[in-house]
Each structure stands twice: as structure tokens, then as C-alpha cells.
């Protein structure tokens, strides 16, 4: 990996991640996370 590509890679990763994050928000995934996170997860505590 040369110097130029190593400098571009972080920005590419950050941009890609930002797009994924915004796409997830647009699809309503934050609400899904909330729905799951406000219920006691029986699996997590070892009885589900």
C-alpha cells in the first residue's frame, strides 16, 4: 500500500460507513434497535 492509497482509504471507509449509517436511518433501523433494546433480552441474561 503506497502513501497515497493509505491516505485515501480512511476517507473512503468513513464515507462508505456514513452512507450505510444514513441508509439505515432512512430505513427506520434506529426504531428497530430501540424496539429490541427496551425489552429485557431473555437470551442475554441466559434464560431465553
Amino acid at each position, binding site marked *: 500500500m503506497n502513501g497515497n492509497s493509505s491516505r485515501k482509504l480512511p476517507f473512503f471507509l468513513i464515507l462508505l460507513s456514513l452512507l450505510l449509517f444514513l441508509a439505515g436511518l432512512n430505513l427506520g*433501523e434506529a426504531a428497530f434497535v430501540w424496539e429490541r433494546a427496551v425489552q429485557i433480552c431473555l437470551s442475554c441474561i441466559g434464560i431465553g
Partner: protein
Amino acid sequence: MEVLRRWVQALATVLSNGYVMFPFTKTIYQGRLKAFCVPGLNCYSCPAAAGACPIGALQNFFAFLQVGWRQGTYLTGFYVIGFLGLLGGFVGRMPCAWLCPFGLLQELLYRIPSPKKEIPPFLSWGKYGFLLFFVILFPLFLLDEFGYGITWFCKFVCPAGTLEAGLPLMGLQPGLRELAGALFSLKVSILVAVVAAAVIVRRPFCRVVCPLGAFYSLFNRGSLFRMAYHPDRCIHCGACSRNCPMGVAPYLGPNGKDCIRCLKCVYQSCPAGALSWECAGLKGGGRPSEEKVGEVPQVAHGDQLQAGAVQGFPGKGGGQ
């Protein structure tokens, strides 16, 4: 720097678990903040948890993916993957060192006086197996008769869930105790094993099991924040590796999969300024401290080289 890191770790632990009303409500926080993921491994069923665990959330997306697609809802986990990717793209695995409550717990346990051991390096690939199988493939493809997957890592492995959620909720809600069976015993056994291992091994869970650390580690070589090794300055004393909370040898590759960017090697260990960091034009470390240089001559140079050879130093001109 270590003092600062401890304070940041403590603050992150408090903020991730900021719901102080749980002793009165006897249940978990249900406010809007739970729509946001926290950067570290912190069970969202912990009575004090103020945010969502990214690994738990990700498994839920995968477990419900096939049913969702059949119903026309296309929730694929982009929100969580993008969030983790943003953090990883900026700082790589740094959240493990600075923001993860379970990492802090392991570091504190390792301070208990006891014989200390190292783990075989190949075990550190185990966390990618847990990420691939227990977080992604099993929830996606091992489905029940209704087409739902289960959160395999949470259910069968995660000791953070047992410690932060299982045990406290058993205390708060006596009815749950009657439901505890073989699975709960298994999870408590895993927790006990991890706690015991953390007393004698540096961050064993982070190095061998943690799927969140595995995900962040994928970004270590390509993140904006990077570590740098200057072989021309290295005196091969091995202090960086000996003092590293992850047992990493930075001279073999400063941006390897297990470096959590705690910066202990840069600011506290290396007496010669052979390690530094850089981020978008900013640079830090890399200068020998007069105070630390004064400590070096206790070991003859020939002995240093010999010790370095044993620990796999590449020698001058080694890779950066």
C-alpha cells in the same frame, strides 16, 4: 496518558450505564436513547444501560432478516454497521481501549497480584470466528420453524450480558430466578472463566472472543488515526510489548489486529521514541523522553538485542 485513559474509561462506563433509576423502577431503561448504539460491549438489558449494545443490535437485525424480507421490510443492519464503520474508520480499535466497560473490567482484574501468563497467538484469531458464526451466520441461517433466528452470541457466549444484565436482573426481579436453568449455569460458568482468565492473562476476552473488537480491528490498517513505528530509533528493549495491555508487539506491525491504540507504548513504555501516532496531519509521541531514556542503561545493549531477538524483533529496517 494512562491516568487520562482511566478517566475516559470510567466516564464512558458511567455514560453507557447512566440510568440511575433502575433500583426504583426494577426494570431496564426504555427511553429514546436506546435507539443509539454505545461504542463498547455493554448489554442493553443491563438495568442501568442507557444505549444499545451494537453486537446485540446487529444479531437482532440478522435474526429477523429473512422474516422481514418476506414481509417486505428491508432492515439489514446498515445503521449499526455504519455506526461501527464510522468509529473504525476514524480510530480503528481505539474504542476498545478508551470506551469499553468490559475492557476496563478486564484491565482492573489483571492488576490483581497473581502469576501472569500469555496466550498462544493463534487464539487471537478466535474472535473472527465468533463474529462470523455467532453474530452473522448462525443468526442469519439457523432459523426456527417460524423463520426467526436467535442471537447466538448473546444467548450462548456473552459474559458481559451475564454480568451486567443476568445477575442484576435476577436480583431485581425474583420471578426470573425460577426460570434460570442449564443455559444460565453455562453463561455463569463462561463469566467465571473469563473473570479468572483476566486475572492472569491480559484482556483475554478482547483478544480471543470479542466480536466487537474483531469488527473494529478490520479498520486498524485503514483508519484515519494510525500508529507508526520508527525502526531506526528502536533500541530493542521490548518494553512496548511487555507493558501492552493486549500483549501486542508493535515492532512487528504497529497497526496489527490487536492494537487497541491505548497509546501506553507511545507515552509510557518506549524510552527511545520509536513509536508514535498520526491522524490527519497531526502527529504525537515519537520523541524520546529524557526521564525514560535514563531508565534504559540498566540493561546492557547486547542483552537488549538478545532479548529482542527472542521476542521476534525484525531488526533495523523492519516493517512499519
